[in-house]
């Protein structure tokens, strides 16, 4: 299983090849073209999957349809009035006209109606550039205003919860956010209040919008009514480029798009993968990008002094060589469940094959909270991959602490420092100060890197190519979205250099070469696919995300 491409193919990509007589399909005529779709499909899906573009606001593929926006009206033969296609199941021999003069006209009128009270906010609106209202107006109406009446004034800054601010004037009352809370997060926290043109979105009495999936409401909001406090006013969306990747926040491995500009990540948004996360991701996962840009180890450090890569690698090699010559049994290696399969494979190869070491340990973030929606208790993205690559040879950090205390391990190579020391920063859990030699390959300037004799800067998840294995055993592709911070290098590359200095032969041209090697040797990766090369696309030219 690989990461799905940016725009997934519709689930029913080629319906015409299906047998027309199949009992669970119906055949209907859309704009003169005969199409066959599964029974129970909504008309709007049948239309949009077959090239008859029907606009919509309140419909969302991952939610139920209330048919409140009336933007998807189409003409159906035999029906006296245009019907909302998001609420009409397909029927056999139905004849649909999505571009009849009447259908076009009623949709244009609905847009005009929606715009009557919409504030002139585009220049200051966070959604501008990926706004469905802008898109549909431009595609379907494109007439100048006929109405210069006074717009209804509403509250422009409503604090809904820890992550979200609401602008009631911009809201077009589509209720998508309410349904996200009800159907995805399973908590009824938003409601509509008042009537007519005074109708507003508000929190349910006694609630605030604080469920763990609240930021999905910002994604589904077709306009700029709901904005994320983290993202708002930080970047214009059309300047962002998008790279498909996988969230490193927990073992679920939600598919995401990394939105970045000029080497900086600005936000993570979910990417559709029906097998993993559908349209959604949790709020916690959205903030995993912060660590990519915060307190990074920018340059190699040897004996407390920043040095060049060559010097640092030579120093690390010398220290490790001396320890290996003295007593290989006292040399331990710590692998991380935060590393990619590629880094882990290179490290396992170096540890077990080339150096023949016996003491390897697995580190990772502590367990956390979980639910039965998306969030996993295992806060590491690649525990499954690490366990499979370790193949029973990895021991716990508790074992490591005991080994160091007993003097069984005097030299340690740590690759990936997340969770090696407890989060509260209390020293002593792992008595690193007792080690004779500590070589660390790490991403951050944390206590482990500070305690190291040689610390080598490692790329974060968004800076290197690789794969993660999620809790379902799916090997999913992570892509480099931004350039490495400072002098950081990918783990497999650092380990290749170290191997060379230590006299082992382990050369890889790129991450894909490691992947190919791992795929040939590791059964759990045998069906994995590296996927195609992907150049980041600027959102302004990628079409509206909507």
């Amino acid at each position: 299983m690989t990461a799905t491409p940016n725009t997934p193919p519709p689930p029913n990509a080629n319906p015409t090849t299906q047998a027309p007589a199949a009992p669970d399909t119906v055949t209907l005529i859309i704009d003169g073209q005969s199409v066959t779709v599964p029974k129970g499909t909504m008309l709007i899906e049948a239309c949009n999957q077959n090239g008859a573009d029907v606009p919509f606001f309140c419909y969302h593929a991952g939610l139920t349809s209330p048919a409140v926006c009336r933007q998807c009206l189409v003409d159906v033969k035999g029906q006296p009035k245009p019907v909302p296609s998001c609420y009409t199941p397909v029927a056999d021999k139905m004849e649909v006209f999505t571009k009849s003069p009447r259908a076009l006209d009623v949709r244009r009128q609905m847009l005009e109606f929606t715009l009557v009270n919409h504030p002139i906010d585009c220049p200051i609106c966070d959604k501008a550039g990926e706004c469905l209202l802008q898109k549909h107006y431009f595609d379907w109406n494109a007439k100048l205003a006929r109405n210069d009446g006074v717009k209804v004034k509403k509250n422009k800054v409503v604090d809904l919860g820890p992550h979200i601010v609401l602008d009631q004037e911009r809201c077009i009352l589509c209720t998508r956010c309410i349904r996200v809370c009800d159907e995805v997060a399973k908590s009824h926290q938003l409601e509509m209040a008042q009537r007519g043109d005074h109708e507003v979105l508000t929190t349910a009495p006694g609630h605030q919008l604080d469920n763990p999936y609240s930021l999905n409401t910002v994604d589904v909001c077709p306009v700029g009514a709901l904005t994320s406090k983290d993202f708002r006013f930080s970047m214009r969306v059309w300047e962002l480029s998008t790279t498909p990747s996988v969230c490193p926040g927990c073992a679920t491995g939600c598919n995401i798009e990394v939105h970045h500009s000029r080497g900086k990540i600005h936000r993570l948004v979910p990417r559709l993968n029906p097998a993993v996360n559908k349209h959604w991701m949790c709020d916690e996962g959205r903030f995993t990008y912060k660590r990519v840009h915060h307190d990074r180890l920018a340059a190699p450090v040897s004996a407390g002094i920043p040095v060049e890569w060559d010097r640092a690698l030579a120093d690390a090699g010398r220290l490790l060589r001396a320890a290996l010559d003295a007593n290989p049994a006292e040399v331990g290696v710590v692998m991380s469940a935060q590393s990619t399969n590629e880094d882990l494979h290179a490290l396992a190869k170096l540890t077990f094959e080339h150096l023949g070491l016996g003491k390897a340990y697995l580190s990772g973030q502590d367990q956390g909270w979980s639910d039965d929606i998306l969030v996993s208790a295992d806060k590491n993205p690649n525990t499954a991959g690490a366990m499979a690559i370790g193949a029973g040879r990895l021991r716990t950090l508790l074992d490591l602490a005991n080994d160091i205390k007993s003097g069984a391990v005097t030299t340690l190579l740590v690759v990936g420092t997340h969770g090696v020391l407890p989060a509260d920063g209390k020293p002593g859990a792992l008595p690193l100060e007792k080690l004779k030699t500590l070589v660390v390959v790490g991403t951050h300037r944390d206590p482990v890197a500070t305690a190291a004799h040689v610390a080598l800067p490692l790329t974060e998840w968004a800076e290197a190519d690789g794969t993660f294995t999620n809790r379902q055993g799916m090997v999913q592709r992570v892509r480099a979205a931004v350039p490495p911070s400072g002098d950081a290098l990918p783990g497999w590359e650092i380990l290749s250099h170290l191997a060379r200095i230590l006299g082992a032969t382990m050369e890889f041209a790129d991450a894909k070469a490691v992947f190919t090697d791992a795929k040939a040797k590791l059964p759990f990766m045998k069906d994995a696919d590296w996927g195609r090369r992907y150049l980041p696309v600027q959102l302004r030219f990628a079409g509206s995300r909507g």
Partner: protein
Amino acid sequence: MSDSHDHDVNLVPPTRRVVLGFQDAEDMDVPDLPTEPVPLNMGPSHPAMHGTVRMVLEVEGEKISSADIQIGYLHRCFEKESESATWTQIFPYTDRLNYISPMLNNIGYAMAVEKLLGIADTLPERAQYIRVIVGETSRITDHLTCLGASAMELGAFTVFLYALKAREWIFELLEEICGARLTVSYMRIGGVAADMPEEWGKKLLDVFARVRDVMVDISKLLDRNRIFRDRMDGIGIITKEDAISWGITGPVGRSTGLAYDVRKDHPYLVYDRFDFDVPVGSVGDNFDRYAVRVEEILQSMRIIEQALAQIPAGRFLHPDPRVSLPPKSETYNSIEAMIAHFKLIMDGIHVPPGEIYSFTEAGNGELGFYIVADGTGRPWKCRVRPPCFPATAVLGKVLPGLFIADVVPTFGMINMIGGECDR
């Protein structure tokens, strides 16, 4: 035009050689060395090469035996850059194609996109007339520059000053209409950026009276000038067959007798409403090219005078807010116009998927734009057919047999413009 001058190529007998610096060279015992071709670099840093082209000549004495024309010194990735700019943002790039007639490049590009959009037939009439008027003034400045610069390169500096003086009068008027002399960016998809100022047409007609006087002066200075005629007549002859097979159009093509003018043969805008002649030459030499350009200046003024008499009032931009920016008063006061403005600026005009080859008569001939649209706000491919490219290429065939000094007027009369040829 047929007063051809026959060069005597055997002025210096091969056995007699002149060594510079020795007055009594003829009396010296100079060994009869075997002749061998000498490679000679002309350009790119040579004033007559306009700083943009390099010719590697092989000369035997003064005579050229082969010429290798090397272009590309002014390559600016126009076509590649266009793929990352919105449709409207490409106008400033087109200004820099043939940079002495930028309006004509603007028009050629705008019309290509309009055909893709399917609004070419509904373009406001006033916009079409304005395009004809400013386009023809650009043709005048183009030809004036070519004539003046070429005459200067042959030593007639007065002509250069006269021609550039006339060009400057026109540039001042173009500045009045769009704010810039050269980098005009005056066209928009669907029309022009701003209406013609009041009284502008009258000022233009006043200028034309003076330009006609200048043309008379130039003709008096050059037409019967012995030095000028000797270096122009019969030099750099391009045959009609060559013009067709190399794809040469414009004044260079017409000088060979090929009466092809896009304005006549495939009328666009409102050119079919004007009465004008297409001058053609008979020999295809440098003097024919000079004479064709002089006549085209006069014909352009004739077209503009008719256009100014016919121009209707009305819109100067297409009314569809999906194509042209709504008025600012609407943009600031209604959400509809604001969205249209925003989408046009940020996403660009949504040109439906398709491809088009659209061509117009620019200063140097048929300027073509081959554009492929993929439905987004920027072109998937924007290729230019620069009219002076084939005319420059043919030099490799024309120059051998001529003298080094003949390169200057021949190259000058081709009017190779680096910005257009190299893109």
